[in-house]
């Protein structure tokens, strides 16, 4: 009997869930999940949940640093950025760092999901941390989700991200591959992290 898991599962039941993922850090997961969530929030009630428990970038991106989530009878109240709800561990620990042994990660992640007030919410977007660990295992235990795997076109990033694409394909949970074509316009368009060719073989290999 696992009360935390039970509550987390039931909270997500019936919601449309997207997970923005990558095995590599700094590829634009938080940027892309934020933009995506803002877009969806114009269409239906959406909450963005930041699962990166060590960086908590979302509070920094949206300007909620130093703020604490309200906690009511329905749970943790998301911060509001226009019509988008935002939940981050940063709204629980304020400006403290989060330093934890690996065995504690899953419980913190499950808590963040279980205790969020999701009433009237139709869509949940998860901003996942780098790596291939608890975040993937926890999500899979709790819900079906639509994976968006983010990479830059650099060769190293593409190779690292292939681990995750391979894993998801094996689990019959085929991802959408989002290539962060961050570019620079200084008279001509330049792509500092590489050209699209680096990604094509990955796309073709996993269809």
């Amino acid at each position, binding site marked *: *009997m696992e009360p935390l898991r039970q509550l987390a599962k039931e909270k997500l039941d019936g919601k449309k869930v997207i997970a923005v993922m990558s095995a590599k850090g700094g590829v634009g997961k938080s940027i892309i999940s934020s933009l995506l969530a803002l877009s969806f929030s114009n269409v239906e009630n959406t909450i963005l949940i930041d699962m990166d428990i060590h960086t908590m970038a979302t509070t920094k991106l949206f300007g909620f640093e130093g703020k604490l989530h309200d906690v009511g009878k329905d749970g943790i109240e998301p911060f509001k950025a226009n019509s988008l709800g935002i939940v981050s561990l940063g709204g629980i620990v304020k400006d403290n760092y989060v330093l934890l042994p690996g065995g504690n990660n899953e*419980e913190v992640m499950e808590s963040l999901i279980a205790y969020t007030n999701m009433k009237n919410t139709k869509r949940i977007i998860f901003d996942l941390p780098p790596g291939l660990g608890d975040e993937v295992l926890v999500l899979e235990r709790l819900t079906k989700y639509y994976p968006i795997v983010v990479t830059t076109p650099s060769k190293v990033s593409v190779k690292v991200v292939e681990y995750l694409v391979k894993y998801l394909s094996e689990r019959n949970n085929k991802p959408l591959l989002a290539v962060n074509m961050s570019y620079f316009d200084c008279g001509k368009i330049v792509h500092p992290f590489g050209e699209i060719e680096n990604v094509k073989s990955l796309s073709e290999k996993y269809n």
Partner: protein
Amino acid sequence: MHEWSVADAIIRTVINWASENHVKEIVKVKVGIPSYSFLDLEILKEAFDTMKKDSVLDNAELDVEFKEPTFKCRNCGFTFTSSDVKDQLDSVRSEFGEEYPLHLMPALAPSFLKCPKCGSHDIITQTQDITIDGIEVKESGTTEAVS
């Protein structure tokens, strides 16, 4: 107010269990809670009694045991309990107020506690969150189901 979410988690879990085990009426639910989460027993019971209505838990009593988990420092080997870090816990609680981090998420303990002997955050503990330690049903006497 986090107590309401804790009650919600307990109720949903027990209802799910009752459904899977064809149990019609539950008399008592025993739960364990780490002492350092400082959950308010009165609020927890109030939330439980409010949310259990019109369910298989209608007549159920909530029996709460506050547990005193042992912490172990992985840096120097020292073991301690939350009474050994009372000053640290008080300090965090005063910084945050009622809904302090370990109230909401006991698993965050290593981030907020330092070993009283060497100062390291490299701390592990066995019990971290709420547990359901026993359920008593009406029908055929006592049934214990441990989480």
